[in-house]
């Protein structure tokens, strides 16, 4: 195995594209090193992207935020403007692992690891986040939900690398939230989860919404019917009920030791409903 620490995105892409064996990208390492330790992968080349200055910062632009692919989740928590604009995304990112893990792990890595139960991904999908990708044939930007292709698989081509996650600037009266169900209080993997992002008009009526579910299907789901159920409402009981039912109906979960299909379907609706209420309260005070 070889270890490389390129200084530029071009060099990183060049190394990945030229590698004939198996190449892995190292950002926080909290998935990669665990998979190596477990013998699930044996990379021939590890490309550490943390020496690439451009990937190590959160930039606030006219359009919103650009979170470099090597920014640890703990730095997101320590960036007040980001936390204020996107509290749900920041909270989701900081539910990953322990303090030790949060000092290393990244949302770009969480996305590329492509676990259906990744905590930050439903929050990013609800937020309408986009992934900036650099590769041998140039750069492209895609919706976050288009990156995972299945458990552990992504739509990235050879030599491609996610360089940043983009979050838009917020319209007034917007809020987001993420909730997961775990049987413990900390340090666990979501049994099922939901991210909700919404914007209100001056009268408190939801004008737009995005609802996402985690650990409910092979990839994180964007549930348009669930969002449709709350647009035009003030989250009255009937609207919340319709939101929950649409979420339960959209689930295609597995049965495993952490939860049954029936449990995941029901709790997906409960998580979405509670996350929507938190997002709504956040939107009202802005």
């Amino acid at each position, binding site marked *: *195995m*070889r*270890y490389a*620490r390129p200084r530029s995105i071009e060099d990183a892409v060049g190394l990945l594209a030229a590698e004939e064996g198996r190449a892995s990208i*190292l950002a*926080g*390492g*909290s998935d990669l*090193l*665990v998979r*190596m*330790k*477990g013998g699930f992968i044996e990379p021939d080349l*590890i490309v*550490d992207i*943390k020496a690439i200055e451009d990937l190590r910062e959160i930039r606030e632009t006219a359009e919103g935020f650009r979170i470099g692919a090597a920014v*640890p989740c*703990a730095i997101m928590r320590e960036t007040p403007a980001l936390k204020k604009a996107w509290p749900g995304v920041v909270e989701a990112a900081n539910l990953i*692992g*322990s*303090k*030790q*893990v949060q*000092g*290393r792990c990244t949302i770009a890595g969480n996305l590329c690891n492509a676990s259906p139960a990744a905590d930050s991904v439903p929050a990013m999908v609800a937020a309408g986040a986009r992934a900036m990708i650099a590769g041998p044939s140039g750069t492209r930007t895609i919706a976050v939900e288009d990156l995972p292709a299945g458990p552990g698989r992504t739509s990235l081509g050879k030599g491609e690398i996610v360089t940043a996650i983009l979050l838009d600037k917020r319209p007034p009266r917007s809020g987001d939230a993420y909730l997961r169900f775990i049987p413990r*209080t*900390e*340090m666990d993997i979501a049994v099922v989860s939901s991210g909700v992002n919404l914007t209100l008009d001056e009268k408190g009526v939801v004008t737009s919404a995005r609802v996402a579910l985690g650990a409910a299907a092979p990839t994180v789901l964007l549930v348009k019917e669930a969002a449709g159920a709350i647009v035009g409402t003030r989250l009255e009981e009937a609207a919340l009920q319709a939101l929950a039912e649409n979420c339960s109906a959209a689930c295609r979960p597995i049965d495993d030791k952490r939860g049954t299909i029936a449990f995941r379907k029901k709790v997906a609706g409960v998580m979405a409903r509670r996350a929507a209420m938190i997002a709504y309260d956040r939107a009202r005070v802005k």
Partner: protein
Amino acid sequence: MMSGIAVSTTINGDEVEFLCQAEETLLEVLRDRLGMTGAKEGCGTGDCGACSVIVDDRLVCSCLVLGAEAEGRRIDTIEGMADGDKLHPLQQKFIEHAALQCGICTPGFLMAAKDLLAKNPDPTEEEIRFGLAGNLCRCTGYDKIVRAVQDAASVMKGA
């Protein structure tokens, strides 16, 4: 032919150079190449926190860091916690409160508690419990550890 990756780093204030293989973790380098056996391997997968060290003021599991990544960084380990013969208040309070039995988790708990108090000098019990959730202890039941950290926090505030 080179026998590994040459790494220059700073550990507990001392400049250190070592050679390591690409797949070696920082924990393996500390223990097996540098003879610093304070950090322990519990799980090797970032779940137990026994290998906790501080890299550039950030608490990490050294089992989830490659040795090669230490290049140019500043690393603090349990070996640098006491000031000569004088124990750090956290170490002193862990002894006074009997916050350890077998001791395998203790270096990790001490590093995590040190990092916690550096960022939050006056934590509530809940903040301590959440702050130390990445460290597992199978002996104490945690209460004595929490009390030791509370007591050390009050000592350190008064200092």
